[in-house]
């Protein structure tokens, strides 16, 4: 840097500003990558996030309506009182099942081993069905035990499908195939380090910008603040292609039960992305304003 540029307040030479601009570009990418990886990891591994989505708003109500409709169809087919099975399902039981299901799949994905599936809360179903007078009247006594078994198994599948929206055979196969290719726990651990690595890279680039500016903080602040604001802008803009992909619409079309959950997930992630974006833009702009003020003070 020339002596002229070393004077307080003067901009460094073009030779110093070009590498600083390149590092600012890299810093933008690093901050953006850190934010996106944080959000991505949360979506893939956060049990709390998925639990909140599973129990959000009217999701459990919809789930119970779906079960009731399934039980009524079953009752029409086999000739028993639908209330016999409907009375066994309560909101509390379904909420517990939803929590267990989220724990089951998040742990299976994280460990690479399919854990034991949660039990469907239909205790006492066989006894209740055997005591159902309409069923006893329509089925021969000898066939009653096998019919009851068949109904219980079908009812269990109805309850299970209301809680697990992704085909569990595909989930099991996917985890097993992925587990054969890579060490899933190690991959999950590595994935958790991506935001930290991106932040470390961001710190490195910020340091390099400061070095290029010969530790002149007011000028370095302009580049660093600009990069932060740019990363915020990019985080906000990332929501556009995600919205354009119309994931929510596709999920709603494939399964009505997923509509409430996917809407809740989308709301949480959108709010978090926008929160990060706004914070980054504010911090970046403040840093740039400070740099500008410093510059004006020296110039004056």
């Amino acid at each position: 840097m020339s002596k002229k540029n070393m004077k307080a307040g003067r901009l460094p030479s073009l030779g110093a500003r070009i590498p600083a601009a390149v590092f600012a570009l890299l810093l933008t990418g690093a901050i953006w990558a850190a934010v996106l990886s944080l959000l991505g990891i949360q979506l893939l591994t956060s049990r709390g996030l998925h639990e909140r989505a599973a129990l959000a708003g009217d999701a459990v109500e919809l789930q119970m309506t779906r079960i009731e409709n399934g039980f009524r169809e079953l009752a029409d087919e086999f000739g028993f009182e639908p209330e016999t099975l409907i009375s066994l399902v309560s909101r509390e039981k379904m909420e517990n099942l939803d929590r267990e299901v989220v724990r089951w799949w998040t742990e299976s994905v994280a460990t690479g081993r399919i854990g034991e599936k949660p039990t469907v809360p239909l205790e006492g179903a066989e006894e209740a069905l055997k005591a159902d007078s309409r069923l006893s009247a329509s089925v021969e006594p000898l066939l009653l035990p096998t019919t009851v078994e068949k109904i219980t198994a079908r009812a269990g599948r109805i309850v299970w499908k209301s809680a697990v929206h992704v085909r569990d055979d595909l989930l099991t196969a996917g985890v097993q195939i992925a587990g054969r290719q890579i060490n899933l726990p190690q991959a999950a651990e590595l994935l958790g380090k991506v935001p930290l690595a991106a932040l470390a890279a961001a710190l490195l680039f910020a340091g390099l910008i400061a070095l290029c500016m010969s530790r002149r903080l007011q000028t370095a602040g302009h580049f660093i603040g600009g990069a932060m604001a740019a990363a915020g802008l990019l985080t906000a803009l990332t929501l556009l292609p995600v919205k354009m992909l119309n994931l929510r619409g596709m999920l709603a079309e494939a399964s009505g039960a997923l509509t409430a959950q996917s809407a809740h997930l989308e709301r949480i992630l959108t709010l978090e992305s926008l929160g990060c974006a706004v914070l980054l833009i504010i911090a970046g702009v403040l840093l740039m304003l400070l740099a500008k003020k410093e510059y004006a003070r020296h110039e004056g």
Partner: protein
Amino acid sequence: MKKQGKWIWLTPVLLALPFIAAVGAAAALYGPTLQNLVSVAIKLAVTK
């Protein structure tokens, strides 16, 4: 100072532009294919 004051707000936009261009190009090239893939995957994986 005036000259720098004018340019200062452009910095974030200029820094974001290459990334926006890259994402835009990728979306234009692979967007429809990705959308079809995701749609098929959802239809296959989600229980009715």
